[in-house]
């Protein structure tokens, strides 16, 4: 659908991710490292899940349309579980790495806190996931044609871009909640994260009825955003202070020695 759609869709899907990278990651080399490593971990999980799906398809045969659909659902569920497993693996790795970094740098505090790590790894997962979802579609959006000659919805590109936006942000929030749950051994929070991930992936099977998939995804994203905000240390009080520009007073007030 030409260059306008290409640029528009890429900005819609990756605009927030780009903004986050530019503002928070780019200046800190350590964060950049962990971002890229996080992306790599997501890639490995994708590789394994695609292997599983491929083997399943070979075994199951590929004649029946409903068999194919069931195999796809199975593949998606396995992929979600594998992604969460690799998130956990990354968490473990980061803990070890942090300890190692601490011994090397001979400082007293961790060079990067677990909270920041959770945010960065979530962003890494999200960007990689978004790229893999959308790049194929973006390259075809550059051509002169739009989807629809076989009866599909012409809003294909737009809705794919919005879905990718939701997934990118969701990965950030999941990362934050997940790492916090692992730290504090809150296993119910972990299960809830995995469940919401499964739900969001499952809801995409409603496509091409994009209202059926986009709306629930955005609702879940809002809920996860609030949960992540509170997990990361935010509170309504802080928010009020920021918004009413009384943060300077708050800081000064907090400077009292304890």
């Amino acid at each position: 659908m030409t260059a306008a759609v290409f640029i528009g869709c890429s900005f819609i899907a990756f605009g927030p991710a780009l903004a986050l990278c530019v503002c928070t990651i780019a200046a800190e080399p350590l964060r950049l490292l962990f971002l890229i490593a996080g992306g790599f971990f997501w890639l490995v999980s994708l590789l394994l899940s695609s292997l599983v799906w491929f083997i399943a398809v070979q075994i199951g045969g590929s004649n029946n349309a409903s068999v194919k659909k069931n195999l796809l659902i199975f593949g998606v569920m396995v992929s979600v579980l594998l992604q969460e497993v690799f998130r956990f693996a990354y968490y473990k790795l980061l803990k070890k790495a942090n300890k190692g970094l601490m011994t090397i740098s001979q400082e007293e505090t961790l060079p990067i806190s677990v909270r920041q790590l959770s945010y960065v790894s979530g962003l890494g997962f999200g960007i990689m996931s978004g790229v893999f979802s959308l790049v194929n579609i973006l390259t075809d959006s550059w051509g002169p044609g739009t989807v629809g000659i076989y009866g599909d919805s012409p809003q294909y590109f737009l809705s794919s871009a919005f879905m990718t936006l939701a997934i990118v942000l969701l990965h950030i929030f999941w990362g934050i909640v997940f790492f916090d749950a692992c730290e504090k051994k809150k296993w119910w929070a972990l299960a809830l994260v995995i469940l919401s991930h499964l739900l969001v992936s499952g809801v995409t099977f409603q496509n091409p009825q994009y209202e059926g998939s986009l709306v629930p995804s955005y609702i879940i994203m809002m809920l996860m955003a609030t949960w992540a905000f509170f997990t990361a240390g935010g509170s309504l009080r802080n928010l009020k202070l920021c918004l009413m520009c009384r943060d300077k007073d708050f800081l000064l007030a907090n400077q009292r020695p304890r």
Partner: protein
Amino acid sequence: CWANSVERKIYIPLNKTAPCVRLLNATHQIGCQSSMSGDTGVIHVVEKEQDLKWVLTDGPHPPYMVLLEGELFTRELMLQLKGSSRISGLAVAISKPSPAQGFSPGLKCPNDGFGVYSNNYGPQYAHCNWTVWNPLGNGLAYEDFNFPIFLLEDANETQVIKQCYQDHNLPQNGSVPEYPLCAMQLFAHMHAVTNTVTCMRRSSLQTAFSLNPEVCDALSDYNVWSTLKPINTSSKIDPMDEVIIVIDSHSFFWNVAPGAESAVASFVTHLAAAEALHKVPDVQKLPRNIMFTFFQGETFDYIGSSRMVYDMQMDKFPIRLDNIHSFLELSQVALRNSSVLWVHTDPVSRRNESIQPQVKTLVEALINSSMGANVTLQEVSQSQPLPPSSFQRFLRAKQIPGVVLADHRTSFQNRYYQSMYDTAENILMKYPEGLSPEETLDYVTDTAKVSAKHCFCPLLAGGWRRGGWRGSGCWVSRMLYGFLIKTNNSWFQSIIKQDLKGLLGDELPQHYIAVTTLVNTTQLVQYVLANLTGTVVNFTKEECLNPEKTPNPEKEMYVYTWVQGSRDPNSTSRVPFCVQSTVHLTKAASPAFELKQWGSTEYSTWTESRWKDIRARIFLVASKELEIITLVVGIAILILSLLATYFINAKAHVLFSSPGDGGAVAY
């Protein structure tokens, strides 16, 4: 698996199409051109003249891509489209059955200026002043269009396009059709421009500095020739008669050249004549030899015959013009009216006192021999000039007695001369339904029977005597089937070399000269001629492939071919054998390219442009508004997220601090 799944959702490729490509000669460029990245337009189906108004003036979504019914593909309509800027391309749906009023995109006066008639020789006959040979010719193939034109050969694909048009582009009750609209994109970017002089100059510059490959190629191929008695090039050559024929054709579209009436029927008859003559007893004792020549490229200003004349004049050919006693040419012969074949001669050379009696003898002998046969020969008015024929090129060099046999008295009988409709149906070849390919191969159509019976091969023998001849309608029908319907049949498979399986195909054979050497038609004519006129010799494969190894003076006069033979009925292997024949190939490239006279008016200068990518596809296009909205939303989200991130980042130490945290927070 031609594309990824998203691409398959968007595009429907059109596979069975033929493009119109750019051809250049010394002074002009003809054909069509598209932009570098293809031309896109909203599809509009034009089934009657009034539909054109929407495209030219009324339609609100220019530029349009017109889907034209074959019946409307006329000069007037095309000139209207040519002048409009609202057209981005054209797709022509081949009309079945062929248009009743005839259709010929060739010129009214084919090969004008390259024959024998000019201001110096028979000026009253030049430029078709006396007879217009192709009155139905509209000259479309010689126009220059700046948009791509494709031929849709498959009726199913045409139906898919029309269905897409009806679903999306049809104006509902006078209102404007809404986006998304069905559109088509045609890719046919041609590299050469202006004329042959320019493009050859650029090609030689580019290749000299290894910058780029050539931008155009000369049309060239090979002529096929063979003699009745083998000739020894070192010793004296006997006088001989030459029988000549054309084997190529053209249409508006690239590589669509069925040429049934204009070429195939004639050269099939010629092949049958050669075969029958070789079987006449005592033929080796004739006082004069007979040479059968098949010229390639005659459609494009006599490429093959002009090259042969040039080679004869330059002594590069074993036979010289002085050795030739007379000519007999078979022009279009399949559409005879009440079984009459007309004998054409050149009135200007007949004024010469040495030529006139020879021509007269020739004509009389021909007419006498046809008495009692199923076809009669009659002479046309002696003041009428020769029709466009290869014989004219020989006359241009030297006045030699000769005749041209054709099925038309004045203008062509062929109403589809040099068009895509000049197919088997044009020469009334009909097969009954339900035959297998093998049965179809052997079915002797009426056309074949008549062609075989009127074979005037007995007429060609030295004394022009009437010979007893059993015409083989079987060979003629097999050849007609092979050259007009399907080349991949059992007989053709048995007469070709083993490593040339790619030569035979299942689609309809086309007879365009092209730029790659040795097109399928030339090779097949060569093998058929070798098979029909040659003898089987008992050589091994080694001896056959390397005849110079076994010393034998006779071997220099013959050509040996190792053919794969027919399949054994019980097994799957073939029994190959060696064929000894006098069939040779000689280059058919215009002398203008040898002499590097690219602007020559003496020789043909036709070249074909090169291109990279030719394809066509259809898809839906969205409105410009939707695209702009998408872009604006994207930019808005980017700016919004940048602002939000900056804000949150600046206040992060406040937002994310819990009451237990101390003053120093490392964010």
